[in-house]
């Protein structure tokens, strides 16, 4: 079985979940004896012997975290803002033209390659996937890690993104969604028949992709002072991720538990707004903005925290809570997330219910048995969510798809 896979980013050149998911899934598929031809828009140095990479040659494309050392640009508006600030504006008007150029490079890229299935991750690579299908007639799977509606905070999507997503979903022979939550969105907002959509939950690497065993000793954070508790947020600072709800809950928590620190790890277009909000709420002294953090540093944050909070307004899946659980820190997650479908041993809350969020944060900080039970049992939940499991399901879907096409 050989699969032509289209992606947009790949660790360590990734901004967040999409790259992590693509790499986790591709590596696990390789272990299942699937040949992966992984196409990326531009050349990067990846050391992953089990996967063969093809690079489209969009060498000017700037990956988040590389040139700026800062923010990702998963949303078109973020990208435009970023591009407006960028000096070396040498190519394409915007992200959309990059996406289309990516597709236009497909014919020469796959010339001479053979494969059975095309698998494209997220809208950025859907046009490339459609192009590959058009040329070869091979079946196309589009894998939806997020929709424009998630990035728009649940109710709205960029029209242009929506159009590309919808075309990809319609052209695809099969759709993989990362959660039932996302599947419902695809049915509701894109008019796709539910029979065409299959849910494959993401996994998490037990070594947190730091390449080091999780049992290693991580030096504690300086903020880890006796008597003080740490509550952690990890994610981009965008409308979708709900950092503002986190800060408002923090203000409530501090009224009752003044000895609490809140760490916000991540950057994004709401960063300045969040710093201002912390000041308005008069909680700046207890809130720390750590910027974009990855690898060992991120693991250190996870391990230092007493509780991890995912306050997302709309989260298709959400790998970070699983990473936190692997690092032995319990999680409070938004009910508006895919990950809440697979983790039982977590506290759950509607993102807008700030009082309940604060109630649960304080409960974990005050009642140690709650923290211990949640972290111990939650870790077991997370460890069950392996990429191997996700890969096995994908292989099953590839076979189903090929059998469907033969008949």
């Amino acid at each position, binding site marked *: 079985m050989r699969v032509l896979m289209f992606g947009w980013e790949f660790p360590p050149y990734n901004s967040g979940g999409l790259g992590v998911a693509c790499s986790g899934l591709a590596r696990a598929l390789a272990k299942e004896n699937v040949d992966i031809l992984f196409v990326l828009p531009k050349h990067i140095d990846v050391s992953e012997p089990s996967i063969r990479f093809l690079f489209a040659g969009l060498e000017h494309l700037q990956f988040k975290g590389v040139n700026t050392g800062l923010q990702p640009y998963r949303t078109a508006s973020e990208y435009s803002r970023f591009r407006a600030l960028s000096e070396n504006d040498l190519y394409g008007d915007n992200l959309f033209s990059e996406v289309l150029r990516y597709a236009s490079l497909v014919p020469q890229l796959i010339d001479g390659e053979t494969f059975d299935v095309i698998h494209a991750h997220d809208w950025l690579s859907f046009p490339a996937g459609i192009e590959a299908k058009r040329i070869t007639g091979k079946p196309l799977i589009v894998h939806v890690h997020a929709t424009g509606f998630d990035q728009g905070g649940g109710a709205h999507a960029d029209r242009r993104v929506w159009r590309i997503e919808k075309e990809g979903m319609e052209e695809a022979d099969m759709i993989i969604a990362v959660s039932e939550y996302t599947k419902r969105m695809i049915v509701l907002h894109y008019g796709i028949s539910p029979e065409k959509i299959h849910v494959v939950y993401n996994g998490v690497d037990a070594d947190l992709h730091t390449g080091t065993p999780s049992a290693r000793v991580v030096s504690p954070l300086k903020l880890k002072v006796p008597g003080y508790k740490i509550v952690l947020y990890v994610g981009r600072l965008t409308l979708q991720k709900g950092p503002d709800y986190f800060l408002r809950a923090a203000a409530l928590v501090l009224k009752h538990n003044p000895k609490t620190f809140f760490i916000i790890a991540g950057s994004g277009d709401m960063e300045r707004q969040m710093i201002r909000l912390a000041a308005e709420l008069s909680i700046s002294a207890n809130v720390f903005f750590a910027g974009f953090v990855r690898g060992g540093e991120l693991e250190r944050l996870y391990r230092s925290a007493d509780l991890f909070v995912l306050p997302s307004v709309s989260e298709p899946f959400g790998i970070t809570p699983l990473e936190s659980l692997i690092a032995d820190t319990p999680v409070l997650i938004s009910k508006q997330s895919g990950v809440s479908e697979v983790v039982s041993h977590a506290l759950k809350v509607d993102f807008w219910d700030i009082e309940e969020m604060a109630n649960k944060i304080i409960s974990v900080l*005050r009642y140690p048995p709650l923290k211990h039970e949640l972290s111990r049992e939650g870790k077991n939940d997370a460890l069950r969510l392996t990429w191997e499991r996700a890969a096995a399901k994908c292989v099953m879907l590839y076979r189903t798809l090929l059998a469907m096409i033969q008949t």
Partner: protein
Amino acid sequence: MLSVCAYFHVHQPYRIKRYRIFDIGNDHEYFNDSSETDLNNRRVLAKVAGKSYVPTNEVLLGLLKKHPEFRFAFSFSGVLLDQLESDFPDVLDSFKRLIATGRVEVLADTYHHSLAFFYSPKEFKRQIQLHSETIWRLFRVRPHVLRNTELSYRNDLAKWAEEYGFEGIMAEGWDHYLGWRSPNFLYRPKDCQKIKVLLKNYRLSDDIAFRFSERSFKGWPVTAEKFAHWVNAHHGTGETINLFMDYETFGEHQWEDSGIFHFLRALPGELMKHPETMFRTPTETVRALHTVGEFDVPHILTWADTERDLSAWVSNDIQRSAITELYALEENVLRTKNEKLIEDWRRLQTSDHFYYMCTKWFADGDVHKYFNPYASPYDAYIAFMNALNDLKLRIKTRIPARRRTPAVV
């Protein structure tokens, strides 16, 4: 002769509302949820009474009139009786009518449906006494046979019951302790001289309580005729068939459309088609039958799950910490002499609160989830601990610090 001895357990807890951290120190009402959820105790009881208690009482009253030989027993929790008395007096009256026939026995129980025996024997005794007084006040009868919360049982409980003066005690007829022996006889609890233990025939009881409408059950559909045949097959190999089940079996766990009422209406007649089958209440049973051997239970035995232990209530850290902290308050709570405060502390002892915190098969969405009014065991724990911390504050304001024992800090 083969006697059929049935008791129905009637209990509804005072569930704790979604009591938040912010309520501590401000709101001292833990059980007054008024939402449209299953945390609203009044709403739940209205539903259960309408679907189960009222129609089943009616069926049983009819049966008592029709069959002069028919008799059975109830075990009520005090907290259920409290709720009936304050909100549903008509339903309570229908129970009174049944008991007034003289053929319906009432068992002794803990007032607050608590696991107090295993945490505070003194408190346990107080709850048994409170319960007996209430049973006398409402029904004018005195219990002679003890049934402990969740059918929990151990050698020392039987010993305690004997010394207290009970003639009989209930337990699960669990194979692990019976070995090759049958639950269909009376046994003498280890180290006891007079008291007799009645063992639940869990197979026949559960054929009704759990499997009645289960189509995959090989005995389905369970008809009165078929069930009477199963019971009567024990003539010669047993003396009493003890059928113990939750009263909500009728109409709530097994819905009316399953035919459960039809079954109940027909059962006594079918059973008595065998001339040697008769009905006895638990007290009549212990007075009529001799024991055939010793029942030795060194570890806690309950009705629940495949383990038949207390693990559904106190197996994880949150359950254990919650119940331990609760009982640690005993001395200080009682010292306040504040009736409302003491009653709230006791209502928090109801075993259901700890059951809701069970994470054993949480992920599988099984029976524990079905009976859980909270979205998760953790939500149950948070509400409980917040209420408990408010209770601690109330104790503080009532007892000067130097007179408090260290449990309240």
